[in-house]
């Protein structure tokens, strides 16, 4: 079934992890060797030209981010964001279970491109196996001279460490992650200053998602045009890891071309909705992205088209709901997640999300009425864009879509005084 071009997953053999020998046999570290022959600015230009966009959720163009970074030597930090706690997102785990060296190589190239001497791989609590894989990969890479002092005789040095977190989704927000690494309370920081100006320990810091880094070696080896050409749409570039979940036949992570239509992902790659049921809705890019409905299945999965469709590519974790799903209950589950994971810093998120949860609980339980529905709309209008960081913003993704696209289902709950989908 899967004849899509495989780049990040090219060396992946389910059930085994490639360490140095396997990774090198598959062409590993050619990208780094190539990079060391180039100028740092040349690498940044190349990544920019390739059109790589961040895979951590916000989709910021990676090359552009790197080009803002101060090149002057000094204490600077390179961080890989492996918090991966947004429900529906489990791709970085697969990368580290398959090919931890791919991350190490990507980070080494990025470090060289920005002349950064220190790096951390930040990993969530649940990814202990990944942490061990990365630690082993780091040790092997150091041994082979891919990391550490004077990498491959280039004169460039980069040392890499693993940091294990202890839970909480907010650590994925890059400035909260930086506080977490510093051993402070992981509330987000205000921007400006941006991490590139003052990040970890007050020094310039670059944060990218794990998958983002993993793309870099391949861009170095194969070039920007090749990378652009992997996408089905001109708006996209490269492949992406799409994690399927929910009511589908196949719920795994697949590497798919950017721009692949949602319908193809769901019907062909995912094998269609499980149990012969009908598709009702999906989260196209993780728990913070607005629901899409059956009428939107032809949307190509890339940043631009999903935004046009009123949603976001996010982390490309596609969670599908069949027609037995109560969308109010599903949204309630999501709202509970965000309310529980709020860091507690700002009012709209800390207290506002709790009100959203309560409203959805009331409506779902059949205790809703018109004022509560109005109040729910108020919440979305006043939380969206008003919180300190993007967590609460993300929480409003599905809630807003519930109001916009499943208003009748909400009204039905209120009119019947119970959930219409529960028998």
């Amino acid at each position: 079934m899967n004849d899509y071009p495989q780049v990040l997953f090219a060396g992946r053999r389910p059930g085994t992890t490639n360490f140095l020998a396997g990774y090198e046999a598959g062409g590993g570290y050619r990208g780094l060797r190539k990079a060391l022959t180039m100028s740092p600015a040349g690498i940044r230009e190349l990544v920019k030209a390739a059109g790589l966009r961040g895979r951590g959720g916000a989709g910021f163009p990676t090359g552009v981010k790197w080009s803002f970074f101060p090149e002057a030597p000094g204490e600077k930090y390179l961080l890989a964001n492996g918090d991966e706690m947004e429900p529906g997102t489990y791709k970085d785990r697969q990368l580290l279970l398959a090919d931890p060296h791919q991350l190490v190589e990507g980070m080494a190239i990025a470090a060289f491109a920005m002349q950064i001497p220190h790096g951390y791989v930040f990993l969530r609590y649940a990814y202990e196996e990944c942490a061990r894989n990365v630690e082993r990969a780091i040790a092997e890479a150091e041994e082979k001279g891919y990391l550490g002092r004077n990498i491959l005789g280039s004169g460039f040095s980069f040392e890499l460490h693993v940091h294990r977190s202890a839970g909480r989704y907010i650590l994925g927000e890059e400035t909260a992650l930086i506080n977490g690494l510093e051993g402070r309370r992981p509330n987000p920081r205000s921007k400006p200053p941006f991490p590139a100006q003052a990040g970890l320990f007050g020094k310039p810091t670059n944060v990218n998602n794990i998958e983002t880094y993993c793309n870099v070696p391949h861009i170095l080896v194969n070039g920007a045009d090749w990378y652009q050409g992997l996408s089905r749409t001109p708006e996209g570039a490269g492949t992406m890891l799409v994690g399927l979940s929910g009511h589908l036949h196949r719920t795994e992570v697949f590497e798919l071309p950017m721009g692949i239509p949602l319908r193809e992902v769901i019907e062909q790659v995912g094998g269609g909705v499980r149990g012969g049921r009908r598709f009702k809705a999906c989260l196209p890019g993780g728990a913070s992205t607005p629901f899409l409905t059956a009428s939107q299945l032809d949307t190509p999965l890339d940043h631009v088209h999903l935004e046009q469709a009123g949603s976001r590519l996010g982390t490309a974790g596609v969670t599908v709901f069949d027609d037995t799903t109560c969308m109010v209950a599903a949204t309630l589950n999501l709202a509970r997640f965000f309310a529980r994971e709020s860091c507690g810093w700002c009012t709209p998120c800390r207290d506002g999300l709790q009100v959203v949860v309560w409203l959805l609980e009331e409506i779902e339980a059949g205790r809703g009425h018109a004022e509560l529905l109005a109040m729910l709309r108020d919440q979305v209008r006043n939380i969206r864009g008003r919180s300190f960081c993007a967590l609460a913003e993300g929480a409003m993704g599905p809630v807003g879509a519930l109001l916009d696209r499943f208003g009748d289902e909400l009204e039905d709950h209120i009119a019947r005084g119970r959930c219409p989908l529960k028998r």
Partner: protein
Amino acid sequence: MSDLLPQDQRAAFRAKAAAIDHPHELIVDALRAVQSHHGWVPDAGVALVAELLGVLAVEVEEVATFYDKIFRRPVGKKVIHVCDSICCWAGGGEAIAAHLQQTLGIGFGETTSDGMFTLLPTCCLGACGDAPAMMVGLTTHGRLTPESIDRILAQYRAEAAG
């Protein structure tokens, strides 16, 4: 106090903290070390981490109480974290949680009377493709069914006994 953290690890943390500019960065590591050795982090553990790293106890407590995977209360030998996020929910997670409560005879936040398991809800474990999922200790178990749960629990019990 001595069972909070072995002497060699204490010395290692002391040495590391003394060697770096920002000893706070070791707080999470040290809390995790105490927890993996002692099972959970008692008040004395917070004080110990503060002392080893040369930071304030309040700074350690501020961090410790933020993370949901640092236990500031006693827990059983194994902590079961059952995912209650959207994919697991869609995959029948509520029934799985109910089954766990029933077989263990405890509610969320409680520990079995034999001190073996503590049951806690958790947000997404990054096992969304294998929903419904739970994590026991640091090991993730997916595609749970009542039968597989019973098997897994029995296995942990057997390991603990033997």
